């Protein structure tokens, strides 16, 4: 899930960024054209615009906006998905939610997912991007290689990591035995203490390459002269990274952190594929909890309420991020 959300935000940034620069251009263009051709062209323009936008907008409205509004409506009912009538219950689902211990544990797991699943890939990605940037050979090879997990289907990633965690044959246990830590071996996905983190590690494998590539692209804009000057002044590699390079790529760093973080709120696919939220509810996150409520336990209304909670949380995070970045500028 994190990877699907990621690019959405990226694209939005793209639109944002370009619109800013282009407003002036566009204004000039319009003024010129209007002066030249008068009022009739405006009608033609409106018709063309309507024709161009309608098909795409219609599909988008029917299969995205409408179900979204439906979700909000469902959240005020305790519909079971089978009856014709949808019993309206007002805010009851929202009140129940706060008294639901499973919600709090799923919420906590989501927090763990977001914190670990964001900080680790960002740290790895930053380290690798910095290393690739500092006069490294085979840059293209490494960059290509690191990016591959990001394009591998989540279902494949989930299955293979399941094998790595395999209690009898998995390489993780074999390696632990090899270095004499037999006591740590276990069925990683079947143990309630490790299931969630094991899934997160698989997701990190799937996302660190994305962070690396985006940060590496950001580094192309850094002036090497300044960094070399700091080196002449005796700054160590760490100091150059910390005080010279990272401040220059701070906007990209914040962005890629936000993308990864926001994606974490809605994660479902990794959990469904690897643990189904188990063992018990040890790896249940908000997204998978909403999924199982709506599609496995027939609590459609309550499931919709959970999905609205996820939306609100991720929207708040997105807006907070945009504010934060505006202030940075």
């Amino acid at each position, binding site marked *: *899930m994190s990877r*699907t959300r*990621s*690019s*959405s935000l*990226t694209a*939005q940034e*793209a*639109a944002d960024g*370009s*619109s800013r*620069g*282009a407003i002036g251009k566009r204004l000039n263009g319009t003024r010129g*054209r209007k002066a030249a051709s008068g009022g009739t062209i405006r009608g*033609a*323009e*409106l018709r063309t*615009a309507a024709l*161009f936008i309608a*098909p795409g*907008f219609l599909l*988008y409205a*029917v*299969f*995205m*906006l409408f*179900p979204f509004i439906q*979700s909000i409506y469902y959240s005020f009912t305790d519909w079971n998905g089978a009856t014709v009538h949808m019993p309206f219950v007002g805010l009851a689902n929202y009140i129940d939610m706060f008294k639901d211990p499973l919600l709090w544990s799923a919420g906590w797991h989501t927090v763990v997912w977001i914190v670990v699943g964001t900080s680790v890939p960002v740290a*790895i990605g930053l380290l690798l991007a910095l*290393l690739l940037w500092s006069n490294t050979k085979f840059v293209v090879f*490494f*960059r290509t*290689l690191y990016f591959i997990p990001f*394009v*591998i*289907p*989540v*279902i*494949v990633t989930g299955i293979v*990591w399941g*094998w*790595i965690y395999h209690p009898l044959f998995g*390489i993780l246990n074999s390696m632990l035995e090899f270095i004499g830590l037999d006591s740590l071996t276990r069925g990683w996905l079947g143990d309630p203490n490790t299931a969630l983190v094991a899934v997160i590690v698989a997701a990190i*494998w799937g996302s660190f390459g994305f962070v690396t590539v985006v940060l590496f692209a950001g580094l192309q*804009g850094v002036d090497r002269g300044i960094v070399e000057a*700091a080196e002449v002044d005796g700054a160590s590699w760490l*100091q150059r990274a910390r005080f010279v390079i990272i401040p220059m790529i701070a*906007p990209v760093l914040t962005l890629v952190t936000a*993308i990864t973080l926001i994606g974490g709120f*809605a994660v*479902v696919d990794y959990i469904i594929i690897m643990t189904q939220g188990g063992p018990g509810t040890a790896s249940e996150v*908000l*997204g998978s909890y909403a*999924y199982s409520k*709506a*599609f496995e336990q027939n609590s*459609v209304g309550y*499931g919709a309420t959970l*999905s609205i909670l996820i*939306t609100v949380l991720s929207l708040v995070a997105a807006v907070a991020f945009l504010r934060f970045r505006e202030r940075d500028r």
Partner: protein
Amino acid sequence: MAQAVDRSSVRTSTAPSGRAQRVGGTVLKYVILGFFALVTLYPLILVISTALKDPLQITVNPFQLFSSWHPQNIVDAWQIGQFGSFFFNTVKITVPVVVLVVALSVLAAYALARLNFPGKGFVFLLFTLGLMIPFTSVMIPLFYQLRDMGLLGSIWAVILPAVAGSAGFGIPLGVFLMRGFYLDLPNELAEAARVDGASEFQVFYRVMLPLSAPGVAVLSVLVFFQTWNTFLLPLLYLPGTENRPLATGLYQFAAGRTQDYGLIAAGALIMAVPVLVIFLIAQRQFVKGVTTGALKG
């Protein structure tokens, strides 16, 4: 900053010769890069190795790397495991999604970037919303909506929501990406065409669309990879076996009681290879797609 430089000058004076340090640093750098290269490669190699394992070896140790050579698994997965039919179902879903997303977003994006009409800002805002709504927020009502429309189980139950952007890359993303491209195109060419008497559609089709080809390539590649890999859409809306794509085919196969690792790995390979090949061919577009936005922001 001054403080930092200060501290470091003390450190350099006590450190051994600079060259030794630099060599050490370089070695460490390649050790780290190499370590992550191994971490990246191992799961990929594991799939290939397991897909080529003969059934006898699998019972001994399914995950020992390259202990046998048994390409028959891939043939078996394609035929007996139905991955051939899953493959073609995936193609039948992916191709229309890419074509529809590109065609519809290019049109809408052009209008939003280049034409003037009342309510433009609002329409754009509504499309923006599509980028912020996670799939979880629409997946429940969408199920009942598709059921009522009689689409559940047909490939359109995946195609239409995917095009709409329910599960990631769809029209909302396309509109944003392409709008950016159209805003950046120079106005002179379009004006010249208008002066020559071209209609608005001709201006778009003959002048602006060809100029935005690089953007179309980026969008196509992103939408292809997303749709090929999409898992939750077919899991929820394609319950039957008839139109099952690779993602859920593989999921059902791997969730089965008998764990035939060789066939599962072969199926995973059948699913991953097309994405990998297209990624390696269109790597520039891929990287551009995921980074342009990040850098412009």
